[in-house]
């Protein structure tokens, strides 16, 4: 069983795209005595190399992103409420009425809601667009709000975390779960050398990974991510992408990448040998840093290992501890295999 305490710490932090510093610092702290060498590049990516007992034949990169979806303050209304724009693909059905925190002073706020009692019948079914929403921080006026909040401040959902019954419900599991797996691998004694990148700005266009892959210039890459699971009522079985509890998800194709076939076959074979339950992603949907990494320089052979996550890009996602362990195991096994393939 994995010790989840570091995952909890990661999920309780806020770090929307472009504002990942707290996450980066926590990971650096966790790696302090791991024997890994840490560099920070110009974008804020954390590039970490760790020597194994033996030299790797191939340079293998494991990558996870530190940022999460959220919002940015674009203006302050005369009544003291804040205007927002989304940062990354926030599930906009899941925004209205939520608790948020604003800026580096962590000001409490609420995405205010026109009372249901005062709605016309058709309004009761209508999802409000984010540009029509406002955050109430309790300020009386623009003049008062500006004392506590600046334009451009990051806004994130209020952190939350539970891990009862082998089920993890938390904010920002996409992709703190990936950061957790990489950090915990780096803390172990490894057979071969590996490089890990904890990257910024995935949610706004795979930006950090592009720079990281350029600098590291790997032969192989494994992107460790969270992916949409829609094994929920109302979605039929042919459309559920992947299922929570059935193990790590391996992809053949998504919207940003056609994955390396040989790597995928090797992963499926390895999973069978090591008795690790995995599942294939059953849709060409979503995308992740593999899109930037596999096209880096003259090309990088890339695979993705994803955690099935329900309610991704909302205030609270859901994954299973079983899938987390399965992902941890297949990522570690494949990192060692690809090092000497």
């Amino acid at each position, binding site marked *: 069983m994995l010790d989840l305490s570091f995952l909890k710490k990661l999920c309780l932090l806020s770090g929307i795209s472009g504002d990942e510093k707290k996450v980066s610092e926590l990971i650096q702290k966790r790696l302090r005595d791991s024997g890994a060498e840490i560099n920070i590049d110009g974008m804020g990516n954390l590039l970490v190399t760790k020597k194994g007992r033996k030299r790797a034949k191939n340079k293998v990169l494991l990558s996870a992103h530190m940022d999460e979806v959220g919002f940015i303050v674009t203006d302050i209304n005369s*009544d003291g*409420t804040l205007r927002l724009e989304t940062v990354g*693909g926030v*599930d*906009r*059905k*899941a925004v*209205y*009425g*939520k*608790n948020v925190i604003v800026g580096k002073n962590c*000001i*409490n*706020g*609420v*995405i*205010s*809601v*026109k*009372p*249901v*009692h*005062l709605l016309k019948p058709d309004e*009761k*079914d*209508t*999802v409000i667009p984010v540009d029509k929403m*406002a955050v*109430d*921080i*309790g*300020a*009386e006026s623009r003049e*008062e709000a500006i004392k506590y909040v600046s334009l451009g401040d990051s806004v994130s959902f*209020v952190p*939350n975390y*539970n891990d*009862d*019954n082998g*089920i993890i*419900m938390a904010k920002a599991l996409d992709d703190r779960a990936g950061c957790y797996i990489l950090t915990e691998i780096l803390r172990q004694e490894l057979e071969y050398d590996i490089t890990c990148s904890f990257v910024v700005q995935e949610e706004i266009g795979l930006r950090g990974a592009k720079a990281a892959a350029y600098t590291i210039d790997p032969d192989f890459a494994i992107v460790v991510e969270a992916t*949409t699971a*829609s*094994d*929920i*009522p*109302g*979605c039929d079985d042919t*459309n559920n*992408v992947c299922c*929570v509890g059935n193990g790590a998800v391996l992809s053949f194709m998504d919207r940003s990448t056609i994955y390396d076939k040989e790597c995928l076959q090797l992963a499926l074979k390895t999973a069978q040998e090591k008795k690790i339950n995995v599942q294939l992603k059953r849709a060409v*949907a979503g995308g992740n840093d593999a899109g930037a990494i596999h096209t880096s320089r003259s090309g990088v052979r890339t695979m993705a290992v994803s955690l099935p996550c*329900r*309610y991704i*890009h*909302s*205030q*609270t996602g*859901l994954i*299973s501890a079983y899938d987390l362990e399965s992902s941890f195991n297949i990522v570690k096994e494949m990192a060692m295999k690809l090092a000497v393939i």
Partner: protein
Amino acid sequence: MKNLLFDLCSANGVSGEEGSVAKIAKLIMGTYANVECDVNGNVIAEFGKLDAKYSIMLDAHIDQIGLIITHIDSNGFVKASPCGGIDRRILQAEKFLILADKPIPCICCSTPPHLSSGNDEKAVSADNLWFDTGISGDKLKDIVSLGDRIVFDGHPRELLNNRVTSKALDNRAGVAAVMYCGDLLKKQDLNCKVIISLSTREEVNMLGARTAAFSCYPSEAVAVDVSFAKQSGVPSEKSGNIDEGPMIGIAPVLDKEISEKLITAAKVKKMKYQCEVMGGATGTNADVISSTRGGIRTGLVSIPLRSMHTGAEIVSLNDIAAVGELLAEYVLERSIAVC
């Protein structure tokens, strides 16, 4: 005030299962009043001159909106119906708690954007409210029962200007106000009996207050609830201003004299107040209390609240304290007038 309100809001009490909130209130009011619970769970606290002919009831409903479990499927998903007027636009991917023997966290199911085929413009429909605990069906059926309630998760939080946000401020804010009033009155020499009735099941047709008012049959009553505070999209004639003091109700169903005397009391205390005028019924317990038995003269005082019926309602602690003070002043004046 803040601690009392946070304790009341942290407790969960969806309509028909208000026990944990009642327990907190009983413990506090039991230090100065005779407190009993009736068959519907209403908490009835009596103090002042207990054998006086004249009695004043202060009512605040103790329940909060939530949902009730109607079905558990084989995959462990839970279907529920609203308990009270829940806003369906805010439910998807919101975190909730199932109030089983041990609270179980769950998330309201939300179809991922890439699968919702244009339907993501729509709120989830009332007959399709599913909740996800992640626990398998077999295991879940052992720990969750049909009829268990579901509430918003989360804790009260402070905002700027002495304001707070929480679930259940409708109507724990009112409960806190009448309990504060009780605290102010407990050492006073009163000529009348004061009855604080924390009534249940308001969010489902005001069921608690009907029987509480019948059995107490007070000489007069004042209901204390929350009402709309001004915010974007809310018309000013239908709302009060947050931090501008108690909203004193004026409506055909309310007793004119009580409304006037409440205004006088506010003036005596030199406190800010605002009038809330309604053309018919008030949508509060005042509507049912006033028509109980042969009729009970009833007034209404409300606390302005934003984002009503969500998991993040907003009130000002100043307004709650002001309502408590206004009620205390009103009762003191009535106590002199009726002896």
